[in-house]
Structures are given as C-alpha cells and as structure tokens.
C-alpha cells in the first residue's frame, strides 16, 4: 500500500488545528502533520482491515467459487459449473428440511426473545426494589457457555426424569417428548435461545431509561392512557434500539448450529437439520467441500434477503429523534 502518493495536498484544510508542530520554515517537511496522521491511521487499521478482508470478504467470495467445484478436499478439484446447485434443488432430500428448520427456528427464537426481553425490560423499568440485582439475574444465562446451556436443557427436557416432565406429571399430564418429537424440537430449542437473551434485556432497559419523561408527562396531561403512551411514545422512541436488537437476534439465530451439534444431530427426522449444521456435515463429515460451499452460498443469500427486508422496511417504523441524534 503506497499511502504517501495517495494523500493529496489537503494540509490547508486539515492543518487548521494542527497543534503547531509545523515550525513553518521555507521547506515544507515531507512528513506533514496530516500525512503523519494518515500514516498513523493506516498503521492502526492494517491488522483489522487486512484481517477483516482475509476472514470475511475473500472467504465469502471463495465460497461462491468453491461452490462451482466438486472436491473432497484431497484430490484436485474438478470444475462442474452449477451442478452442485442443481443437485441441491432437485435431488437433495435435506434442502427443504434445512430451509424449514432454519426459518422456523429463527422466527420462533427472534420473536420469542424480543417479546420476552422487552417485557422483562419494561417490568424492570418500573419502580421496583433492588433493580440492579434483578437485572444481573436476568443477565446470568447470557454468561454461560453455549455447550453448558445445551447440556443443562437436555437434562431439563429429559423424557422420564427431566424437570419439565416431572412438572407435567405433578399436574397430571402425560410426559412430553420435548426433543424427541419432530413437532416439538424447534420450539423447545427456541425456548433455550429465549432464556439466554439477557443481553437484549439489558440493552432494552437502557433504552427505556432513556425515554425522556417529558413526553410521557405531556401525553398523560392530554389524557393518554398507559397503553397509548407505551405504543405512541415509548415504542417509537425505542425503535432504533428495537431495530438493533432485532438485527442482531436475526443474524445470530439464522446461523444457529450449536444445538444440533450438541444435542440433536439434526434429528428427530431432520426436524432440526439447520442449514449451518448441514454445511458442517457436508464439509467435515462427508467431505463434499464444493457441495457444502454451494449450501453456504445459498445460506449467504438467505441471510442477505432477511437483512435486506429488515433494512428496507425499517424506514416505515424506525424513528430517529430529529435533533441530537448521533
């Protein structure tokens, strides 16, 4: 990277608040302050910028390239055009299952954790005793390693002796196959994601505490009831934070893989065959690298579509305060 020749002569503009380091003699030194500044900046950015392109952009492109090859990771790759995609859409029995599992899980986990965390945040925002204590408690599950969480919940969901089926038995209900039935497995796994959403609660709570009381009071004087105040003042004011949490929850939950790795192995009857897990399976247990890359490319498009929808619709419901917005 030749930085020096790229930096134009902008000293006049940028040099305004140079801390007087240029003792302006007749010869302008080569390393002017703004050049030094730029060089420092590039040096600061090099590791991350190189790294981000090395671990994000280039691999993403490579995944698309790889998807056009047939390769087992050992022999030399063979170019086969779009055959991987053809196979995926026509022959592959897992494709629709994985699409369904990913979307249903993401939908349940995102909606569930958003509603739960907003609800808890609203409760915590009320005038209740020992608020920091409760806030810390709700945050605890977020601090647990995913694998610990899934072993814990596997035991809670256990068919005969798990906590939930003990409770069912006490209530006189038949035991429920939480993880063993294809119908229940995704809601059961999504509930785990909801339980872990402590970070969302804390962020929502911070947002709620930032809603200026003035608007609430004004609306109250105008006769708005608490539901109206919540819907017409709190929610619009919170919309940037809701958007942020929604985006993060969506991206994370679409990429779900750990529950399948740790508990279900994609079962029962492929009901939890998440697309990420399928990518892992094809690449690292069946050594169909090119084929797995084709899945990865489709997965990229899938995540892209959802993110794009979220951004495109955001202008209809996202409100930023006019002044003082950062």
């Amino acid at each position: 990277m030749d930085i020096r020749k790229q930096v134009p002569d902008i000293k006049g503009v940028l040099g305004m608040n140079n801390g007087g380091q240029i003792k302006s003699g007749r010869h302008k030194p080569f390393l002017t302050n703004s050049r030094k500044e730029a060089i420092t900046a590039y040096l600061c950015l090099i590791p991350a910028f190189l790294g981000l392109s090395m671990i994000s952009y280039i691999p993403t492109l490579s995944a698309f390239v790889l998807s056009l090859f047939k390769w087992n990771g050992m022999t030399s790759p063979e170019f086969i055009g779009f055959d991987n995609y053809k196979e995926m859409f026509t022959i592959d029995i897992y494709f629709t299952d994985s699409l369904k599992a990913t979307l249903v899980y993401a939908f349940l986990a995102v909606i569930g954790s958003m509603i739960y965390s907003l609800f808890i945040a609203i409760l915590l925002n009320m005038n209740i005793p020992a608020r920091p204590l409760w806030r810390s408690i709700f945050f605890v599950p977020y601090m647990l390693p995913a694998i610990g969480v899934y072993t814990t919940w596997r035991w809670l969901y256990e068919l005969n002796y798990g906590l939930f089926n003990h409770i069912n038995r006490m209530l006189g209900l038949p035991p429920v196959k939480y993880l063993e039935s294809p119908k229940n497995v995704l809601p059961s796994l999504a509930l785990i994601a909801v339980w872990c959403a402590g970070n969302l609660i804390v962020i929502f709570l911070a947002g709620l505490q930032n809603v200026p009381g003035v608007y609430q009071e004004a609306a109250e004087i105008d006769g708005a009831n608490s539901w109206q105040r919540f819907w017409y003042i709190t929610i619009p004011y919170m919309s940037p934070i809701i958007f942020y949490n929604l985006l993060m929850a969506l991206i994370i939950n679409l990429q779900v893989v750990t529950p399948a790795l740790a508990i279900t192995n994609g079962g029962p009857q492929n009901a939890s065959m998440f697309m990420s897990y399928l990518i892992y399976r094809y690449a690292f247990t069946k050594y169909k690298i090119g084929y797995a890359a084709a899945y990865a490319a489709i997965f990229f498009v899938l995540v892209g579509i959802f993110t794009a929808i979220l951004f495109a619709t955001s202008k209809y419901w996202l409100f930023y305060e006019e002044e003082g917005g950062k």
Partner: protein
Amino acid sequence: MEGSVNNTYTIKSSFFKSKQRREKIVNGIAFVFVVIFAAAVLLPLWWIIRSSLMSNGVLYSYPPSFIPYEWMVSNYSKTLETFKYWTYFKNTFTIIIPAVTFGTITAIFCGYAFARLRFKGKKLIFTLCVGTILLPGMVTLIPLYIFWTKIVGLGGTYWPLILPFLTGGGFFNIYLIRQFMTTVPKEIDESAEIDGASRMCILWSILVPNIKPAITVVILMLFIQLWNDLLQQLIYINDMNKITFAIALTNFTGSFGTKWNLAMAATCMVIAPGIIIYLIGQKSFVEGIVLTGIKT
C-alpha cells in the same frame, strides 16, 4: 418545573392520590412478575446443581426432591476421574487469553483511527468494515478452514482459533470503541498534543482510561464469543490432549448419556469460570452494556 408540579398537585390532589395508589399497585404486580421470572431463569441452574449432588437412584425417583438430602460431593471426584477438567481449563484459556488480548488491542487501535484520525478513504474503509457484520460466519467457514489448514498449514494448532481475533473480533467491537471515543471531548487531545504528547501517548494514557466501560464490554463480548464456540473448535482441534471445555463436555455427556448426575457435575464445573468472572465483574459488565445500548 417544580412549581408547575406543585400547582397541578394542589389542583388535582385527589386525582393524584388515586394515581399514586394505582401506581403502587402496578409496581407491586410488576415486582411479583419480576420475582417469578427471575426464579424461572434461575431454576435450571439450581436444577443442575442439585442434580450434580445426587446419586442416580435419587435422581430417578418420583416425586423429585428439590434439595438433595444427601450431598454427594463424591460425584465431582468421580467425574474428574475421566473428565480431565484442568487440562481442558488450560486448553480453553490458552485460546481465550491471547484471543481476547489481541482482539481488544486491535479494536482500540481501529476505533481510534475511525474516531480521531483523518485519512483518505475513511468512509470507504468504514463501510467495508460495517459490511462484515452482515457476512455470516457459516459462509466463510469452509474457505477459512482450507486457508488455515491447506495454505498456511496451521491445522492441529490453536492459531486458526486465535489469529482471527487480530481483527478486533468483529466490527461491532471496533464500532463500540469508536462511538465511545467520539464522546470524549477533542479538546483534551488537542491540549495534550500542544504539551507534546504523541498520538499513541494520547490514545493509551488519555482516551483509553476514558472509555473503560466500552473496553470492558469488548473484553466481555470477545470472551463470550470464544466461550460459546463449539463449531470452530470441533473443526480445528483433533488431538484429544488439546480439546477444550466445549468439546470435552459434548463428548462426556454423549458417552455418559445415562449417568446424568456425573454429566451435570461436569456441566457445573464447565459453567463455573464464566459465573465467577461474571460475579467479579458483574457491575461493570452490566453497566457497560447499558452504556453501549445508549450509544450505538
């Protein structure tokens, strides 16, 4: 402001009294809900602790007891016979400590460049960096695996798990640091510069101490990211002596499928470091996250 409140108060004192009462009731109901939900959140944790201290016979009896009447601490020593806790502990933190350190330092440098320095192409680089948030890690998994194992030849070492953190562990962390740094008044930098401080000196001795909450959150986020990972570790680690908590626990609970008390003892031990770190840094973690919620 106060005057107007007093004014309304005298006019509508009865209205306010009933309002106060209603508020009290609403807050009371909210408190009850909070307690119930908090209990529900903690119940799974209590359940695994209590399960880890029971014999299998008691564990499988009905009705279930909420508190073990015989505390079988021996479950833990029995677990440790096959579950090499301290090896896994060492392995896990051999990855976590350098990764978190690298990640935090690079995030600080980048955040500083974006917040304070002027250079050509800043907007473009910034946009490119933001874009990486939207690139799913699952897509890059296979090409990266090929890169680390076939091209660089680091297969079987921890480096493929550590080196990616030289990027600040994702753009979110860089962004966070940038946001916090922009709130530190620029005049502080400028006066230090006049006093002859170098840029690095300003960064490390003025800016960094001023954005401690953000740095705490970045450290926490990096820690959690590594702490939660199973997939990457599964792919890159294939030596049984090098496995981490995540892999070890998956193997252990898989092989001891029916001995739930031992499986739960192992689970408790695995989640313990995270809980301990949380208890120590609880206040600054939560407050840091609160601040990030406001500033992003």
